[in-house]
């Protein structure tokens, strides 16, 4: 299914929270994130992801630590900060609220 291009801004806006969600489950590095998103409508590329992650780190939602990898150079593993955790919870609440609103308006 190819969604209406009108939905693109919605997906773009949500990407940040999906990354919070992914990072909340486990320490991940960028290639992991991309793999998780790959088969969803939110599939993304490094060109988008790196700037976004750096912004989220500036806002102290995520943080990273370097870890040696068996193959290749050390990688940045991202994890959620306390602020990121609360933001994610806030987002989920807000998402539920939006859903309820949309469904109620339909009646």
């Amino acid at each position, binding site marked *: 299914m190819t969604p209406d291009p009108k939905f693109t801004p919605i997906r*773009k*806006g949500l*990407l*940040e929270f999906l990354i919070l969600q992914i990072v909340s489950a486990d320490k991940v590095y*960028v290639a992991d994130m991309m793999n998780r998103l790959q088969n969803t409508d939110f599939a*993304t*590329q*490094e*060109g*988008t992801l*790196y*700037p*976004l992650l*750096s*912004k989220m*780190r*500036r806002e102290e939602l995520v943080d990273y630590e370097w870890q040696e990898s068996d193959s*290749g*150079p050390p990688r*940045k593993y991202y994890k959620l900060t306390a602020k990121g955790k609360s933001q994610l919870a806030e987002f989920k609440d807000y998402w539920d609220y939006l859903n309820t609103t949309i469904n109620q308006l339909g009646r």
Partner: protein
Amino acid sequence: MNTVIIINLNGNAFHLDEPAYQSLRAYLERAQAQLKDNPDKAEIVADLEQAIADKCAHFLRPHKNVLSLAEIEDVLKQMGPVQTDGAQASESAAAHEQPQAAASSWDTPKRLYQIREGAMLSGVCTGIAAYFNIDVTIVRILFVVLALLTGGIWLLVYIAMMLVIPFANTDEERAAAAGAPFNAQEVIDRAKKHYGEFKNHKEWRRHWRQQRREWRRKWHDGAYWWAHNLQRNVHQFSTPSGYGAQLVAGLLIPILAILSALVFILWIVAIVQLATSGSIFGWAIPASMPLWVSILILIFLYSAISQPLRHARRAIYFTTGGYNYSWFAALDGILALGVLALVCWFAYTHLPQVHQFFEHFNENWQTMWNNIVDSFRHSGLTVAVHRLAELV
């Protein structure tokens, strides 16, 4: 054989072909520009370089250690354009538009250039073919057909393109397959630049003078040859044709004139019918064929039929008239125009459809035009036309 350039991607050395290097450099420069206000620019670029390095490593084997343009393009496609939409989503709409535009210019990275490699004349056709991603041969055939149909005017257009469209000469221009769209300001800038070069370059000037002398000589020779031959031909035609030939030719004049006029009228009627109702004399054109294509075909058919008729008429002037052929040509022209006027008058007074068509000429013309434009729009060619319009 290409020059190989060694680069350092976040601490990893890679061997790149020259074109691959240009492409990668263009990508990274665009990334830098995109991130220029970002406090973490250095870090993000380092991350991007590392990601590119990881992807590049997939293409390397023990006996293959140079990356080609195709491979780099593949890597960059996987990377995607560097976007900072997310970061600016909360800022003003104007600030939000900017990275979008930059990103889309990466998505459609093409600019029109003349490409010398594989060119027959100047590289206009190769450039256009590369721009629209079609076979050069198709473009060349199209150009020849256009030149024939327009009676050579297209050649002037071609020459104009030769002068205006820049060459993909420097590394920067080749890499700038991804720059801003080709616009009017740029044409002017380039013209200025070229003019400057042109003025300064002694070598060029000498070459140009020589070329001009050559052309002038050829032109003189050619003109003389034509004049000479034409005269001889007139002599040949006028003397040997006997009364029999002249009589037949004389009879043929009105027949051919009427025929030409009728072909012309049929052609006009066919185009009008096609544009208003989508069918010609009751025969509906296949749905798969867009209206504008069928009109092009009609134009082509008309010139294919009328051209030989015209030549036949011209030949007859010589046969009948000899030296005085111009009288016969004038007579013939008047006859054809007369037939045309007669048919128009007859149709206007005796055929209600024709009468009505002209009564509401404005609306009819509008619908016809709209139909043609619509057919054009639906055929996905609008993008191409928009790009052409940008150029003009």
